[in-house]
């Protein structure tokens, strides 16, 4: 039973195939509207989420299937102390596929070992968020036509930002990608990402604290939020939360075809004034996320 815990669970060929399938769904939605008839998706969200959960649910409804699940740990048996493994075993009796978000790192991996049906990691703490990465990849593909020869700026919380880690892992497998890592000192990319992924693949990268100076060379600017829930210390969060705010002034020297991305939700790190800029792609990412989740569920259920 195939599960997806990490973007690295997918080969480059499989990612390319998912992108091809998602593009076909976009072009011919009617072909797929009944593909999951009779199938059930369980969304097990032990941590609040709007976008990801609704995206999974919308994706399954658009494929003709049904959805069950919960949206916070308090409304599940976890509140009574049930283990992730037991929850997964139980839900595996009701559903054909599971999407799980959990605040603890590795929880969806534990679930995948016990559920008996495919489990998709919908975000586990500060660790991985592979379907966000698939949404990011489809967005880059549709905006740039591919993944090679790109200078990709990643800005904000690069330490706890799971979307950043997953995206680096995915892009590192394509050739001639250059990373510009923009963050405060305290929120730099962890060594296991920098050493084991970027350096190991021999990719060029620079680390900087200066967003404005980095912008002119970028093809992609991936902004992230400093997340309160990742900090044990409120003081640290308050000190770092406004580190980087993108506004029209900072984009003066940016490329005309820059692609501005953000996994959302944003707080204030991208000014709303940028929403009208044709280079703003973050709401396209949301839509692309639904199509990629449709493609992924079709593949894991062996229906495409």
């Amino acid at each position, binding site marked *: 039973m195939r599960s997806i815990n990490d973007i690295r669970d997918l080969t480059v060929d499989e990612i390319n195939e998912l992108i091809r399938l998602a593009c076909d769904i976009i072009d011919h939605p009617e072909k797929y509207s009944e593909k999951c008839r009779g199938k059930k998706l369980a969304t097990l969200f032990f941590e609040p989420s709007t976008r990801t959960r609704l995206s999974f649910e919308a994706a399954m409804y658009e494929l003709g299937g049904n959805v069950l699940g919960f949206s916070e740990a308090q409304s599940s048996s976890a509140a009574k102390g049930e*283990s992730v493994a037991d929850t997964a075993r139980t839900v595996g009796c009701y559903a054909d596929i599971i999407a799980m978000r959990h605040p*603890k*790192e*590795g929880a969806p991996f*534990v679930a995948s070992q016990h559920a008996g049906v495919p489990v998709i990691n919908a975000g586990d703490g500060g660790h991985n968020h592979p379907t966000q990465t698939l949404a990011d990849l489809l967005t880059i593909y549709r905006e740039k036509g591919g993944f090679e020869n790109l200078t990709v700026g990643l800005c904000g919380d690069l330490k706890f930002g799971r979307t950043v880690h997953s995206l680096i892992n995915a892009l590192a497998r394509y050739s001639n990608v250059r990373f510009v890592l923009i963050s405060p000192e305290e929120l730099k990319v962890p060594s*296991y990402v920098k050493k*084991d992924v970027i350096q190991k693949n021999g990719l060029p990268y620079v680390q900087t604290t200066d967003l404005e100076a980095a912008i002119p060379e970028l093809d992609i600017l991936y902004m992230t939020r400093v997340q309160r829930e990742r900090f044990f210390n409120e003081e640290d969060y308050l000190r770092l939360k406004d580190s980087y705010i993108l506004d029209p002034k900072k984009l003066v020297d940016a490329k005309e075809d820059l692609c501005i991305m953000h996994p959302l939700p944003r707080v204030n790190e991208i000014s709303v004034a940028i929403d009208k800029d044709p280079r703003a792609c973050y709401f396209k990412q949301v839509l692309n996320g639904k199509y990629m989740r449709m493609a992924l569920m079709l593949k894991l259920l062996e229906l495409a």
Partner: protein
Amino acid sequence: MRVDAIQNGIVIDHITAGRGMQLYDLLGLESLGCPVALMMNAVSGKMGRKDIIKIDAEIPVDLDVIGYVDPGATVNFIRDGALVEKRNIEMPKMLTNVIRCKNPRCITSVEQELDHVFRLTDVKNKIYRCIYCETKAK
């Protein structure tokens, strides 16, 4: 300084000096009822200094633990006072319940029944990472 030869048991030899105590702890040797000798900083022709552990009983030892702590060690099995088998140790690819994940955000920090499993991800630098959260073992 001398420690008597054993008749039936195990000698863990060529332990890098200073790692004997960690090995003693991780192998749980303090709970054995039989005589156990831990010799630290013994003189070695090859190594200069080394640690040695002698266990005066034929007990199962977890070779993965030895491979994790000191893959250069050798394990000698003694029967009737003679060497019957000598094993060179390799770093294990997986380690189960030998060390614990220290990441407070890891699922193992809240689910007590889960095995603590680490995978060897970098042979050259001897790096093990938790299979759940990828935190590096310290």
